[in-house]
């Protein structure tokens, strides 16, 4: 469960609050429940599908479900989807570090450092990743919680009025981005075989709980950002959560001011985990797609490929930001919601079951 939260949270808190505020303005807080409901639906579909084939990953069973040719094709879309999210994470991370802290450091250096860490983690394996993540995730949520609480006095409730000034349309638009981010929990399609067979039945509950926690954290940030900055200001900020962290000011306790670097420590770790997870899922998916026995030989070449992609896919941060508002949500929702739903529907319709001997966890 921890894992599902952190893989979404790290990038979601970067751009999503301002993307939502850009569309929904003062009604951004209404967008998130919608997004949460959509995210819960996507998660439910994904977990159901994963549980139908508990010993296999999505790349392994799609050819059987959809037929060898289409199945392989769809499998490759999943491979690409995981790597796509991975290099999107790389770019987001380096853009923020470049903009806020390391102005003169070439972006490629920042990407390489993060990727090298991710590669190291991949060689260590999934278990190490999950254990460290437990520590980092809760520290991050704690840090966000403190940031919001420190600023709670500054939240002006009148910033949320008038409600539904421009009708429900903008609220729905504002829900698209966070909704698709919540759906990133579909990474479970690659991870299910590694979850203990005894824990697998509880995954539906765990993942839905993860979406709920994500929703609460994101809602907290959106309310704090709109309440403190006003809807217009919240919408124009590139990094609203960082702005919130920098906004902390308790005149009586000046020690808490200018502590955004502490928050960044957890955020950087969160980004690392997110990158590693999707990179892992992508590498494993490609290895299985190519019917390789081991995914490790693919780690370094793929690291180079996604680094190059992250560098060339977007021109600058303005493009990255509009991309994450206008293209990214639809692109990943296509895989998370449409494809995953399709596979599940076909599997149920054709009554396809796991191959004997492959059931259960490992």
């Amino acid at each position, binding site marked *: 469960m921890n894992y599902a939260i952190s893989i979404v949270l790290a990038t979601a808190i970067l751009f999503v609050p301002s993307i939502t505020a850009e569309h929904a303005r003062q009604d951004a807080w209404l967008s998130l429940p919608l997004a949460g409901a959509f995210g819960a639906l996507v998660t439910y579909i994904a977990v159901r599908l994963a549980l139908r084939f508990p010993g296999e990953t999505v790349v392994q069973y799609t050819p059987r479900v959809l037929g060898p040719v289409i199945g392989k094709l769809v499998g490759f879309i999943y491979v690409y989807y995981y790597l796509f999210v991975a290099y999107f994470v790389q770019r987001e991370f380096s853009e923020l570090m470049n903009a806020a802290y390391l102005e003169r450091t070439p972006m490629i250096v920042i990407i390489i450092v993060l990727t090298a860490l991710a590669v190291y983690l991949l060689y260590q394996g999934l278990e190490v990743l999950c254990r460290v993540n437990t520590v980092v995730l809760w520290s991050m949520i704690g840090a966000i919680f403190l940031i919001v609480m420190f600023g709670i006095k500054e939240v002006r409730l009148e910033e949320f*009025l008038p409600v539904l000034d421009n009708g429900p349309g903008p609220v729905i638009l504002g829900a698209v981005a966070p909704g698709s981010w919540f759906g990133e929990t579909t990474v479970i399609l690659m991870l299910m075989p590694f979850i203990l067979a005894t824990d697998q039945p509880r995954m539906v509950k765990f993942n839905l709980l993860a979406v709920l926690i994500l929703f609460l954290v994101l809602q907290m940030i959106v309310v704090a950002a709109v309440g403190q900055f006003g809807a217009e200001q919240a919408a124009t900020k590139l990094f609203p959560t960082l702005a919130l962290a920098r906004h902390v000011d308790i005149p009586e306790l000046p020690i808490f001011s200018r502590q955004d670097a502490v928050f960044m420590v957890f955020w950087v770790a969160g980004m690392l985990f997110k990158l590693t997870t999707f990179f892992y899922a992508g590498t494993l998916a490609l290895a299985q797609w190519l019917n390789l026995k081991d995914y490790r030989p693919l780690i370094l070449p793929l690291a180079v490929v996604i680094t190059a992609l992250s560098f060339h896919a977007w021109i600058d941060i303005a493009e990255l930001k509009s991309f994450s508002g206008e293209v990214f949500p639809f692109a990943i929702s296509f895989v998370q919601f449409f494809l995953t739903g399709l596979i599940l529907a076909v599997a149920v319709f054709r009554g396809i079951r796991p191959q004997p001997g492959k059931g259960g966890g490992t």
Partner: protein
Amino acid sequence: MAGNRIARFCLFIIALLVIGGSMGGCWDKREAEDMGYVRATALNSAPSGKVLLLAQVPNPATFAGGGMAAITPGASQDAKAYRNFEAEGSTVFEAIRQLAIQAPRRLFWAQNTLIIFSEGLARQGIEGHLDFFERSVEIRRRLNHVLVTPNDPRVLLDVPAPHETVPGGRIERIIMQEQQTSRFAVVSLSAFLRMLATEGQDAYCGVVRAQKNPARPALVQQVNAPEPALTIEMSGAAAFRGTRFAGYLTERETQGLLWARNEIRGGPVTVPSPSGTGRVTLDILRGKGRIIPAIQDGRLLATVEITDVVAELVQSEAPLDLTRSEVLRTLEHALAREIEREVIAAANKSQALGADVLGVGAAFHRKLPREWREIKENWPEIFPTVEITASAEATIRRMGFTLKGITIKD
């Protein structure tokens, strides 16, 4: 095994190369002692449309143990606790970089707390200059106060004082005392930008002045440390129409403005004593303000409602018998009327200036969004015609350590 050892050796060589090679290329290395921490930034207009930027940088050496010069016997003068650097530039950033030709350290803006605009520059409009501060990575938007000064920033930021020697730090300390009076506005950069962005809300900010020091005697007797000729004072508010300075609000008007903006956290209010002679001063402890808009027969009405005011009686010139509750009720009534007059004074001034600093338009937008859509285009013309009224309610909860005041034998 041999292969393993060769691999290890290769790894070691690679590590050496990477670590050694990266030594020379640390792009964003900054040492704390190489930085000049800017405390206050002031902008003034320069001829030919340029901007004059003044940055105040404290000298950390003078803070440690009061400064060496001060302890050394016979030292004639303390080291100056700060330096003011000034440069001219076509834009704010040009001017900031221009400062580097005189500043010995890399000027760093993350600790800056004051952004002071001269009145002249503010009259021309500050939109272009504000952009730099909003965009800046170093500037902390919440920790910076926006101020307007009628003085030349060179004078203002060089007013000497024996304590709180750095003028920027002194201004900041005065700002922290705002709750004692509520007679000047305190507006962070973040709040200022928010007001600029909000529909039906004009921005305002605090005002800082260098005044003639009233405590300085006509005949200066002290040779070493006379009272300085000037003193820094925060007083009133500056109202903006859009990003252009529109005019000043007096202290009383500012108090009314803060009531309407729900920003009152303290401050004294004096009313005539119910006993008929003398005055009574009440200290505000808390209170809430909000603007309630209404449209009646096509007329726009706005009521500033001040509720939950809790005050403490701190001084009564004539003896009052507070054991009788009607005396307190009379006082509460007088306090409420005085608060209403303050609010009306603020409303009248803002309507006269055509600057909706109270946020009357914003209140219409929030409560009557449909009607607002029709009036918002012409809001600057409509705003002065809105009928603004005030209604206040107050309670006096405390009266210090005495009930009747000093008793004097008959």
